[in-house]
């Protein structure tokens, strides 16, 4: 049954991917990309990767779509079509596809317990997590503690991406200066005059924030963690910005505060790592943070997940505001 459903979802994925390539209508392409992410999330969930599914649904299908739409507001609606047959790229893609299909012949069967990936370090992680870290969600233990360096790197990828986008958008002169004029301009007003979306949206925002906090702090016990929670909190604030107008959202959470969030989260993560060194152990070793090594691991995971969540929220909101401000001028 799982196999059947997986094949069905993968077939839909291929169809969606082909549709994205075929369509020249950019708005359709964005919506199809969102559908692609949602299908991907369902697929991950089917493979028991609930953490990845949550990330894919929140970031891929949710926030990315909003950001794409924001970018779309700045460009034309249709892709410029060219009818030149490009033989070289086509042959490169065809050859790569054939090589990849050939490579799959050597792969172990789906769900095979003898597969190398299940024989290498995974058993050690599953066996030692209760002993060293003592939390039920092994994924969080691996991401946060055993492979804390990798997650640190991911946070800095997000951080760098945010800085890059802000840098690109601030290049245009006169963008931020006339905020006084923008405050009274019509587009900054959001959906204030539309009763139904406004009432429902205002009703939902507190619950979305609460769910974000749940995902943030429940990550050690169930699926979740900083990346997903950051996306959910950012989504709640973007919803607020859509309803009440961007100016009001900026009054609640100004750009300066967002920069502090962006840098502060990454700094918190790095700071926890440095604290490990200062307390006489290795970088990102949380065992020394408290008298009891396991309590130290718990504290370290809590802090770094908070750092991840803060940075992700800050970056996503900064990018959103960058697009929104650019569209207005």
């Amino acid at each position, binding site marked *: 049954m799982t196999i059947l459903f997986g094949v069905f979802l993968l077939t839909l994925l291929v169809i969606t991917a082909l549709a994205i390539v075929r369509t020249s209508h950019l708005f359709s392409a964005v919506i199809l990309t969102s559908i692609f992410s949602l299908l991907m999330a369902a697929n991950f969930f089917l493979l028991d990767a609930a953490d990845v599914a949550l990330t894919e649904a929140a970031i891929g299908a949710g926030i990315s779509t909003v950001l794409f739409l924001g970018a779309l507001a700045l460009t034309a609606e249709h892709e410029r079509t060219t009818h030149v047959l490009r033989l070289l790229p086509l042959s490169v893609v065809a050859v790569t596809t054939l090589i990849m299909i050939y490579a799959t012949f050597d792969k172990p069967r789906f769900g095979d317990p003898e597969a190398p990936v299940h024989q290498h370090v995974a058993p050690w992680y599953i066996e030692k997590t209760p002993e060293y870290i003592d939390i039920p969600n092994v994924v969080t233990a691996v991401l946060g503690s055993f492979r804390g360096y990798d997650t640190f790197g991911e946070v800095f990828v997000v951080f760098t991406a945010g800085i890059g986008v802000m840098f690109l958008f601030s290049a245009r002169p006169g963008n931020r200066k006339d905020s006084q004029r923008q405050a009274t301009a019509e587009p900054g007003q959001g*959906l204030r005059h*539309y009763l*139904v*979306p406004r009432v*429902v949206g205002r009703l*939902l925002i507190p619950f979305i924030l609460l769910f974000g906090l749940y995902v943030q702090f429940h990550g050690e016990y169930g699926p979740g963690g900083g990346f997903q929670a950051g996306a959910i909190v950012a989504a709640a604030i973007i919803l607020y910005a859509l309803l009440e107008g961007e100016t009001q959202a900026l009054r609640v959470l100004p750009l300066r505060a967002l920069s502090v969030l962006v840098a502060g989260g990454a700094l918190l993560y790095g700071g926890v790592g440095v604290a490990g060194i200062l307390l006489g152990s290795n970088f990102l070793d949380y065992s020394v943070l408290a008298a009891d090594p396991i309590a130290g691991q718990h504290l370290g995971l809590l802090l770094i997940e908070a750092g991840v969540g803060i940075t992700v929220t800050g970056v996503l909101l900064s990018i959103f505001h960058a697009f929104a401000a650019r569209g207005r001028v």
Partner: protein
Amino acid sequence: MTMALLVDIASWVLLSLGGALIFIGGLGALRMPNLYTRMHAASLTDTMGAMLVIAGIMLQAGASLATIKLAAILLFLLLTSPAASNALASAALLAGLRPDQGTIPASEHSE
């Protein structure tokens, strides 16, 4: 007949009805002539389809935490999908798409 069997039958009836409604909604969204009638057809999926499917799954889950979660999802859907439909319809109206236009908008002919 045992209780479990009855619950099972009721749940499958609900699931099948919900699935049928979602199918009809999808068909309507494909075949209807303009945006407003399409939305009308698709609203079957959002409301009755989702309600029946979730009710069916709730019967399968029994009295457990999953049922409460499903009830929360249902409440969320019942709040958000009408609001989203409302927003979509007013956006379409604002963009100048008139409800009495019986044809598919010109932009979709070009594909």
